[in-house]
């Protein structure tokens, strides 16, 4: 899933300092699962912002709505009603950054603000902890690495083994970060495939990655 986290309250307060009435939108997709932008977080943020603004002596009106997803135009259409009926100064989105872009695209004259920092494609390690697992390079080759991705999970995206900074299974950038190459080594060792790691992996073709420009997938069979 896309993992995101809420922006610092201060940054958000600064974004919305001119506004007196806003619509705060959540998303029931990935950001609900990663506890960043579901109905609960929408409620918490709304309350926090109201508290902060009350404290400043300038109350703000915040309507809350959580959409099924903010990455499908049909769901974004559900904002039509509240936006047209209320004179919002801005719409705030607690979806991943796809959400605010969809809202912006759909509502030409409405100011849209992202409330989250979209962090990575990842998964939860345990309740309340998420980690990055994929960089969306567009040509998955993790089977060569025991099923672990060195592109996303090595700080240097090394493809030929751990750099000299690997220490005790941890990456040189932080003792909290696993050295994925260490994990790959261990797993390949368990799989009896260490020999595979002995071959030099040559240049990766990044054209399928974002380096090839904004990507699009078209399924002709599905496209109307």
């Amino acid at each position: 899933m896309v993992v995101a986290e809420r922006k610092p309250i201060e940054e958000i307060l600064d974004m919305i300092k001119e506004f007196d009435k806003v619509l705060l939108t959540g998303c029931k997709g990935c950001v609900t699962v990663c506890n960043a932008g579901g109905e609960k977080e929408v409620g918490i943020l709304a309350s926090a912002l109201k508290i902060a603004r009350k404290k400043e002596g300038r109350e703000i009106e915040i309507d809350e709505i959580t959409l099924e997803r903010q990455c499908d135009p049909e769901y974004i259409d559900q904002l039509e009603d509240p936006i047209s009926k209320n004179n919002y100064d801005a719409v705030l989105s607690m979806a991943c950054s796809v959400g605010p872009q969809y809202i912006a695209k759909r509502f030409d004259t409405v100011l849209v603000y992202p409330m989250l920092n979209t962090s990575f494609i990842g998964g939860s390690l345990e309740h309340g902890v998420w980690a990055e697992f994929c960089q969306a390079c567009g040509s998955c080759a993790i089977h060569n690495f025991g099923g672990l991705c060195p592109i996303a999970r090595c700080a240097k995206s090394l493809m030929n083994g751990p750099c000299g900074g690997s220490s005790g299974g941890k990456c040189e950038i932080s003792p909290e970060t696993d050295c994925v190459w260490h994990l790959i080594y261990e797993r390949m060792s368990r799989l009896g495939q260490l020999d595979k790691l002995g071959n030099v992996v040559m240049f990766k073709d990044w054209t399928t990655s974002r380096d090839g420009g904004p990507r699009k997938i078209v399924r002709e069979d599905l496209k109307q």
Partner: protein
Amino acid sequence: MAAKSGNSKVGSVMVVGAGIAGIQASLDLAESGFYVHLVDASPSIGGLMPQLDKTFPTNDCSMCIVSPKLVDAGRHLNINIISNTEVDFVEGEVGNFTAHLVNHPRFIDPVKCTGCGVCKQHCPVTAVNEFNEGLDRRAATYIKYPQAVPLAYAIDRETCIGCGLCEKLCLAKAVVYAEEERRSTLEVGAIILAPGNEVFDPTAFDTYSYAHHPNVVTSLEFERILSASGPYQGHLMRPYDREEPKSVAWLQCVGSRDINHCDNGYCSAVCCMYAIKEAVIAKEHSHEPLDTAIFFMDMRTYGKDFEKYYERAREEHGVRFIRSRVHTVDPVEEGRLKIIYTDEEGKSLEEEFDMVVLSSGFQPSKRTVELAERLGIELNEHNFAETSSFEPVKTSREGIFVCGAFRDPKDIPISVMEASAAAAAAAAPLVESRFTLTKTKELPAERLVAGEEPRVGVFVCNCGINIGGYADVPAVRDYARNLPNVVHVEDNLFTCSQDTQEKIREVIKEKDINRVVVASCSPRTHEPMFQETIREAGLNKYLFEMANIRDQDTWVHQNDPQGATQKAKDLVRSAVAKAALLDPLEQTVLGLNKVALVVGGGVAGMVAALSLADQGFPVHLVEKTGELGGNALKLRKTWKGEDIGSYVKDLVARVQSHEHITLHTNTQVVANTGFVGNFDTILEKVDDPEQKTTVQHGVSIVATGGKESRPTEYLYGEDDRVLTALELDSRLKEDGNGFKNVNRAVFIQCVGSREPERPYCSKICCTHSIESALQLKELNPDMNVYILYRDIRTYGFREELYKKARAKGIIFIRYSLERKPQVSNGSGSLQVQVYDPILGRDLVIPADALVLASAVLPNEAKEVVRALKVNQNAEGFFLEAHMKLRPVDFGSDGLFLCGLAHYPKSIDEAIAQAQAAAARAATVLAKDVITLGAVKAVVEPDKCAVCLTCVRTCPFGVPYIGEDGYAVIDPAGCHGCGACVAECPGKAISLQHFTDKQLIAKTEALLLKEIGEAAAGK
């Protein structure tokens, strides 16, 4: 199997005496399938408890805790309360008794009487008010107290002048002047006697000036003086001049431990504790610092948490304790009294007090004794029912059982325990007739309120003066009238009384009320009762909300009436806000596994198992060791001299051969899941953890027992001549002759008990040591036997043993914690040095044997604690649901406890408690279904993001992702804590009855209005 003659046994039980014991026995029987006739000579049930102010050691308000029980009994479909009635005689035998009753006239028909009280208001006659122990007066038409059950008036024809005013005024036409004594009969299968005791009347003690001086009162009179519903509305005053006393003295053992002034040689068992309690509460009631002094011989604070209470009274509250003998109480000027007493050293001293309370003992009343004679029940020398230690609730007549104070003097929890035990014992012979005579309740269909606008009814309680005395209740009531959605408001003296309940039911119907708010005491004690009331009026019971304006308001803001009133308004407003959002909830009904799990194969565990098995319920009995019997295997005799060895042998044999008992020895409980009615417990062989069994059962009884501590002082373990009490028992059991040559034996009491690190009394050691001392004396009459003690705690009839010991020449020397005996063996002989307070000097006793009365400890039972999630107190004893009224229940439904794991106790008490646990368990097992509460986490599938938060958050592992792709929470497993609800990122889970909307509405109502008022320039 031989064919039984159908329902030849009558499926009903007569309970005689409706004090707390009679009520508890009735409730347990009625809940386990028997119809109960609850007979009491008084016009209302409740016995002594409603007269008490507070109860020790929790200081709970007595009326508050008993009132729900009264109401439960009063409204129970299968309890037939027969008031103003005495039992004449009983024919027949167990299974088929015919009880002949004498129904005294009440002169007011309890069925017609609405309890409106108009008759009382207009009655021109005044009479002495017995309920207030004669401290004030009442009318001739009267009701004992406002919460009385049945809530119906009666006419005291002895004082009534027959003016006929009440008859004319009674709109209900309930007054029946012409009523005469009737006779009636009841067919019952068994009988339980719970007639209780009467308080000893100290009139005959002229030296205490009780008869002539108003400021000398009995302890029960003092309870009424302290009580908010008493003659002085809870203001501490002395009767002489209605002035607040500055000093009060308590004289202990009045009518107890005394064969000079009266014939009551026994100890009344509760007076020490109630005197301490009265002293502490009096201090709390007093506006000025109050001096309190308790004159006593031995301080007998032997029950659970009693010793700590005693310590607190002394250390924190400054109650004075004076070890002495009082010989006279002389009136001096201005209503004061001079106490002349002898202290321990024999010095005569005197001191003046404003008031003197006589801690009166208890005895069976003449009426009780006569009843016993008519029923052919054997009594002991003190006129109490004769029972054996091994069948503590069985009388000499088959089918007739006894519980409560008529068996021996005792406190409330033990009475309640025995009452349940008696219920179990009475049920056993009638098992085949279970549910043959019971009725089922026809509840009106629930009114559908969905879609209706909220119509809230608000009932504000004065709780006598508990609330009304501090907060302005009419103002709160009027304030509530203007709150949104409120369509009805009223205030009542006691909202919990039966007449108010009736009124609530009527007004709900009359005004189409669909949400009810009661502002009163505490949901903890009263919510279920009010919920039932509204259910009877056709409302779903969850359409009820309570504002706690007593426990959390007037009781804690007594010094700020304005603040209390404002807070009451806020709380009512908040409750109304939530009420408007309440939804009717459906309770889940589940089948149950009519099997019991008993953990612990000592006497308590075996008795509990047998009691249930005899009632036909399959039992799994789990014992950690390879042997049944526990501590009893080491014991010789009961204090009464009954042989424990043969009893235990017989018990073990019965357990082993019982068709309904599955025995698991060398086994322990390792895990438990499920809930009342449907538990799964994993058992594991102690020596082979691989060998596991899962048992399915509906209830669990924990009887993990206790053990004797290993002393760490007095040369124990260093010198062979130093033994523990149980070691002495074993030696005496093997071959007592070894002690024939012992010339001097010394017992030291309280070894490891009543010490700062173990601040409780082990309860059984005084009796045990004296009994052993007597045994030694018997082996060698020339032996010098010394018992070094801190207080001799031979409560109840055990006092006889103490008396006997002194008569036999056993020497008792008191020591204090500050000056403990010293033991040495320097020169080869054992020397015990102790300070004798009577002689005022140290004594050195050369001893051939030293016996240490070491503390009783609970067994650790870690696995049980972890698996069953039950709580222990600081000392490691299990914590019951309520100290007073739920002594064998755990806080969690379906779990019960008994035996030493609860607290040190003698074998008869352990047996009674085990039977009690069985009775309580039977109230679950007898039923065919379990109805679950509806406070459960509920998933809204549409909103579920399947994120697993709930799965990961739930401490009990209940939620799972179902086949349909959303989280599923099984209501049967859900404990209703709400942890997942607070964490769910999609707000897909709500906790019924505690939804976000409801909680936030409560908060908003509390705060926003408050600010509003503040802003309005208040």
